[in-house]
């Protein structure tokens, strides 16, 4: 036991001595959090739009004001004709042009129907869709107000669905990113750092000395893994605190249950790290394999940024084998819906089985290497 304690102390000392890595370990969660929280947003603010008003009456004026007054838009161009549209888009600043048809107010009053045309610059399709959706909701609001105030019945073409976004009504992207960030950072620290630190011992020749010594192989693995486990837990806490107090992400579920699930995912990542290090012979390989084999799929295929349901079928299949996908479902459930084990037992079970599998594989690999 004394032997083992010495090993863990040495491991902590080495991590502590390596200031650059230490900075990365503790700085990364904060930087990523700030990046994803502030810079990378799915909501829009102050998008520049133009108005082409063929009618110039009270109603179109009010609608233009409404657009201008919303935080999402700034009306920056008043057009005279359709010819100007392309020029403006070519310049690149204006993202959308709202066109009101002639005699807008008149038609609205008489027929109950008036056309608004929305032209968007779809060079950035995501942005175009968002801008369109926001404009639509502002117009709908106005229509609803009109109906209520004046008792005028304005017909709307076809069925008008009433949309209600549950659990994240403001559609704040930071709520969505936090669980994904936790998964990514745990993959980076638990899997990548562990695999690098074990292969470093191999590369430097220390591993041979350790294997010749009375230390048991499992002592070495646990000793290597334990410090990164502690670091990972500290990082999960950092992200969670930032999320709650800086970005005001709701946390509806149980803290204890969250940490149990996070603990399970840390185990998954550590097992992957050990597995990689038992296959890779130097730090470079370990790093490349961790980045390409773990981090990329975690970012791209887990549903962190791109929803799994909109992937091609093949990739959807692949995503089933990515631990982060299941972890994301669990964490989003706990944080935003307040899920408990009853609701996410299936995902937990899958994650548990995966973890057990990886631990088994890496133990086998480690023993084979000794023969």
């Amino acid at each position, binding site marked *: 036991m*004394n*032997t083992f*304690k*010495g*090993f863990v102390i*040495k491991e902590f*000392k*080495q991590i502590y*001595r*390596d200031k650059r890595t230490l900075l990365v370990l503790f700085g990364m969660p904060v930087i990523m959090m700030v990046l994803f929280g502030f810079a990378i947003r799915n909501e829009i603010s102050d998008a520049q739009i133009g108005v082409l008003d063929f009618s110039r009456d009270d109603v179109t004026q009010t609608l233009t004001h409404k657009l201008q007054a919303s935080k999402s838009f700034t009306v920056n161009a008043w057009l005279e004709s359709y010819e100007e549209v392309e020029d403006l888009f070519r310049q690149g600043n204006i993202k959308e042009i709202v066109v009101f048809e002639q005699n807008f107010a008149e038609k609205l009053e008489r027929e109950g129907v008036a056309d608004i045309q929305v032209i968007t610059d779809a060079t950035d399709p995501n942005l175009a869709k968002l801008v369109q959706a926001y404009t639509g909701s502002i117009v709908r609001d106005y229509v609803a107000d009109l109906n209520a105030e004046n008792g005028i019945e304005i017909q709307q073409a076809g069925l008008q669905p009433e949309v209600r976004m549950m659990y994240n009504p403001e559609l704040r992207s930071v709520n969505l990113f936090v669980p994904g960030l936790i998964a990514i950072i745990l993959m980076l620290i638990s899997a990548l750092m562990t695999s690098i630190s074990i292969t470093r011992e191999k590369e*430097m*020749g*220390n591993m*041979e*000395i*350790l*294997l*010749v*010594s*009375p*230390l048991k192989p499992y002592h070495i693995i646990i000793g290597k893994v334990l410090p990164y486990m502690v670091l990972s837990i500290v990082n999960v806490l950092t992200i969670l605190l930032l999320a709650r107090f800086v970005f005001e992400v709701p946390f509806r579920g149980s803290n204890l249950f969250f940490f149990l699930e996070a603990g399970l995912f840390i185990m998954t990542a550590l097992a992957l790290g050990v597995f990689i290090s038992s296959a890779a012979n130097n730090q470079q390989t370990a790093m490349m394999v961790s980045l390409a084999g773990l981090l990329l799929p975690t970012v791209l295929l887990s549903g962190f940024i791109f929803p799994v349901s909109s992937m091609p079928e093949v990739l959807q299949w692949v995503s089933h084998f990515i631990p982060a996908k299941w972890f994301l479902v669990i964490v989003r459930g706990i944080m935003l819906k307040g899920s408990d084990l009853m609701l996410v037992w299936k995902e937990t079970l899958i994650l548990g089985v995966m973890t057990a599998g990886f631990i088994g594989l890496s133990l086998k690999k480690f023993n084979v290497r*000794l*023969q």
Partner: protein
Amino acid sequence: MYDVAIKTEGLTRRFGDFTAVDQISFEVKKGEIFGFLGANGAGKTTAMRMLTGLLMPTEGQAEVAGFDVYKQAESIKKSIGYMSQKFSLYNDLTAEENIRFYGGVYGIGRNELPQKTDEVIDSVGLQSVRKKPVESLPLGWKQKLAFSISILHQPKVVFLDEPTGGVDPVIRRQFWEKIYEIADRGITVFVTTHYMDEAEYCDRVSIMVDGKIEALDTPKGLKQSFSCDSIEEVFIQLARSAERGQG
């Protein structure tokens, strides 16, 4: 008490079709300095890995410090010291921390450790730099430190895998003085080297070619039976007959 520190009988290791170590048999007496020579790829490292419990033999018998390599690998690990050709200290830890770490690994108690640490620091002459990271020390000092650490727990047998690689002649000389010193204390030294002048310092020398031991005698005896002036000539004569490429 035993008089034989290492004993092998037809020790063999195969990797698939390739026989890395082919039926080697030898005995090393207690307190002896045994030189284990061979060209690169002759099978030295594989043989050493079997004797240190890192690799299971395919067939044959071997005993180290009186323990069987098949059944008592754990006991062997406690009775041997090992220093590899690759540098084996932790560069980012200080000399003192390295000593304490390896001392701990070999189960030296907390009460004994401070005293042992001081002893090693004194014997290597590291008083002034004991709190500096090992990284900043010259290679020769590092090697001396690694050697002292490998015998910290008073092993019965110490395996030195090219301990003096890349070290200047003065330090090599000091190194061999230390080896003689521990051999006098009854520690058996099993050493590989590429420096043929060092082979002359050994009590007995074996030369491996293509996985087999082709010659085993005192340096003097070897020179006589091959009618050469130096071990180097003996070695070259044997190594030339090798069929395996340098690898």
